[in-house]
C-alpha cells in the first residue's frame, strides 16, 4: 500500500522547480527524510532542493524524522522573510 502525500513548493523553491505542487507516492512508514530523498533522487530540477530543507507537515513545522500519512500536506519552506 502506498502513501500519497501532497507536496507544496514556495517562493525560491517553486521558482527553481518550476512547479508549486506535486502528488508523491511514498512507501508505508515513510518519513519527511524519505520524501526529500525520493524527490532529490529524481535528478534535475529536484536535486536543487536542499538535503535538509525546512518543512511543514499539515501546516506545522516538522522534523525530518516526522512520519507521513496518507493525504498529508508537506510544504518545502525556504528561509522565511515576512515583516
Amino acid at each position, binding site marked *: 500500500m502506498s502513501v500519497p502525500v501532497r507536496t507544496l513548493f*514556495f*517562493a525560491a523553491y517553486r521558482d527553481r522547480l518550476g512547479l508549486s505542487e506535486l502528488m508523491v507516492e511514498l512507501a508505508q512508514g515513510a518519513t519527511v527524510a524519505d520524501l526529500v530523498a525520493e524527490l532529490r533522487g529524481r535528478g534535475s530540477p529536484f536535486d536543487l532542493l536542499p538535503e535538509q530543507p525546512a518543512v511543514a507537515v499539515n501546516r506545522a513545522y516538522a522534523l525530518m524524522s516526522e512520519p507521513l500519512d496518507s493525504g498529508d500536506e508537506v510544504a518545502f519552506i525556504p*528561509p*522565511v*522573510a*515576512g515583516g
Partner: protein
Amino acid sequence: MIFARVVADVIDPVEVLARVGSDEDGAALLFLGVVRDHADERPVSGMRYDAYADMAGEVLQAIAEEAAQRLGTDRVAVVHRFGELGIGEVSVAIAVSSPHRAEAFDASRYVIEQIKQRLPVWKKEHYVDGASEWVEGTVPPRAASPTVSTAAWEGGSA
C-alpha cells in the same frame, strides 16, 4: 479579542489599532512594516510578498497568542499582507495595548521578531534596474513549538 490575519487586501492601520484598547490600558502601540525604497543601498521599486496562506494564518495566530501571554492582555491585533506592494505600502501592522507600557513594547517587538523567524512568507524585491530577487530569509525552526528565548528574538534588521 486576539486578532491575526494574513490578507491580500490593503491594510488599514487605523482599523488594526482600533481593535485594541480597553479602559484598563494605559499604553497602546502600533507598529507598521512598510515597503521602503532601498535594500542595502540598492534602489527598490516595489516588493512582492508570497505566503503559504493557510499555514501563515495559523502561525500568526500562534504568535499573537504568545504575545498576549507576554502582554498580560488579549489586546493583540496583527495583520500581514501578501501580493504586490508599492513603496510606502504597509506589509504588516501590529497593535497591542496593556495597562503598562513596558509590556506593550515587549509584546509588539516579540510579534515582529517572531514573524521574521517563523511566518511562512517570502518577499521578492523588485529593483529600479528591472531585476527581481527573493530576499535572503531566516531558516525557520524545525519543530512546531520553538523554544521562545529572549535572545532568540532580539536584534535583527529591518
